């Protein structure tokens, strides 16, 4: 049997973005060159990675920290920056209470520190900028989506792009100052005057699915697992085909 087996599926494996095996398997030393505060809980960490092979918006990398006794902690982080040739990537980390890796970044790290990174890994959630993209994120789930928006802007892409982003309140909305007309924020606890407070709902998704671009939307959902479950269900209920929904769950 040499033919490639195709299982009966509604969920198509995209397979359209090749991952460099070489890049995914080599640890490189990255130097922290800058820290930018985004919100009280989130900050962006800029890393110089001399051998960075490049990435696509939506991809993530692994960060590895090593203690003096050899203890190692490694975590996945989405890349926030758009692909460019600056030799830098940016990560935006939430400060998790008691978190080993995010705790180190938020309380110890300073420019000049070095960490190890590996990647980019996984091409599944990547968006090369080729198809209309409907982005839905919550909390730090907006990070890989921001890379897509930045890419869209940097390349002046004409392909339609929309972002629905959920945050507890305006002060917790990461990248608030950078969003443009493509973005609709949804606030779950507190909102500016005149803006309703509440969970992301069918009413937020419906208008976006009503304005179908030619070829239809490719949907990208990112956030905590409970948010991903909720948002992907809203999309399916609103008629978005399951095989055109990609989900990145932060756990």
């Amino acid at each position, binding site marked *: 049997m040499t033919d490639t087996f195709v299982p009966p599926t509604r969920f198509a494996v995209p397979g359209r973005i090749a991952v460099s*095996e070489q890049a995914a398997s080599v640890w490189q030393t990255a130097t922290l060159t800058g820290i930018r505060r985004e919100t009280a809980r989130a900050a962006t960490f800029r890393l110089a990675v001399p051998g960075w092979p490049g990435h696509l918006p939506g991809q993530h990398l692994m960060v590895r920290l090593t203690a003096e006794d050899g203890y190692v902690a490694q975590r996945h982080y989405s890349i926030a920056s758009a692909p460019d040739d600056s030799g830098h990537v940016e990560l935006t980390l939430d400060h998790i209470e008691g978190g080993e890796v995010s705790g180190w970044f938020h309380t110890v790290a300073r420019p000049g520190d070095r960490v190890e990174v590996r990647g980019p890994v996984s091409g599944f959630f990547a968006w090369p900028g080729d198809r209309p993209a409907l982005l839905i994120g919550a909390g730090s789930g907006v990070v890989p989506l921001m890379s897509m928006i930045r890419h869209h802007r940097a390349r002046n892409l004409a392909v339609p792009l929309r972002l629905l982003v959920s945050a507890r309140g305006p002060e917790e909305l990461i990248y608030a100052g950078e969003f443009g007309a493509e973005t609709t924020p949804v606030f779950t606890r507190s909102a500016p005057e005149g803006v309703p407070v509440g969970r992301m709902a069918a009413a937020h998704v419906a208008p976006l699915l009503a304005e179908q671009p030619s070829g239809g939307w490719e949907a990208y959902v990112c956030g905590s697992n409970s948010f991903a479950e909720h948002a992907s269900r809203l999309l399916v209920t609103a008629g978005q085909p399951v095989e055109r929904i990609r989900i990145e769950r932060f756990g």
Partner: protein
Amino acid sequence: MHITRGFTGRPRVADPGLPPGQYDAGDDWPVLSAEVTPDLAPADWTFRIDGLVDQPRTWDWEEAHRLPPSAYEGAIHCVTSWSKFGVRFAGVSLDAFWDVVRPHGSATHAVAYSHTGYTTNLPLADLTGGRAWIAWEYDGRPLAPEHGGPARLLVPHLYFWKSAKWIAGLRILDHDEPGFWEQNGYHERGNPWEEQRYSGD
């Protein structure tokens, strides 16, 4: 290896049950799947084994439940670095299915595929000898949809992306054929003790 200035990590006790690079997630059970959780009722679930076997066959929920019950109690390890100890799954050992379908002598690998279309590849040797299950209960309760219910593959000695959720079938082959994550850069086998995370590890 590069020591990270000021990084100590959490106070830890050396745990011989923890593979390298893993941490104990405790009561947490993170969910990692790339697709929408399917609405799959037990009555609609089927499980098929075909390819290089004497008797290709499909079981439905009732038929699969008539096979001898078998349980797994132990640890599971996710490639995203968490491990979970003392988990209890119940279902059927894959050996009960092998007794029926009888793989050919030339068979070396399997592609596991799910009702969503997710795929993952495994050496046949990792699916025999009481080391793999079709599991439908977790901790005495029906397996939750987001964890692969009504039924998932369970291969606890490999990283958990090999334990395909919403398992629909196994295609038996005489060669290896990379699945979903394997095409996306993950390791062909995924042994947590050897830290086989990405291809090339």
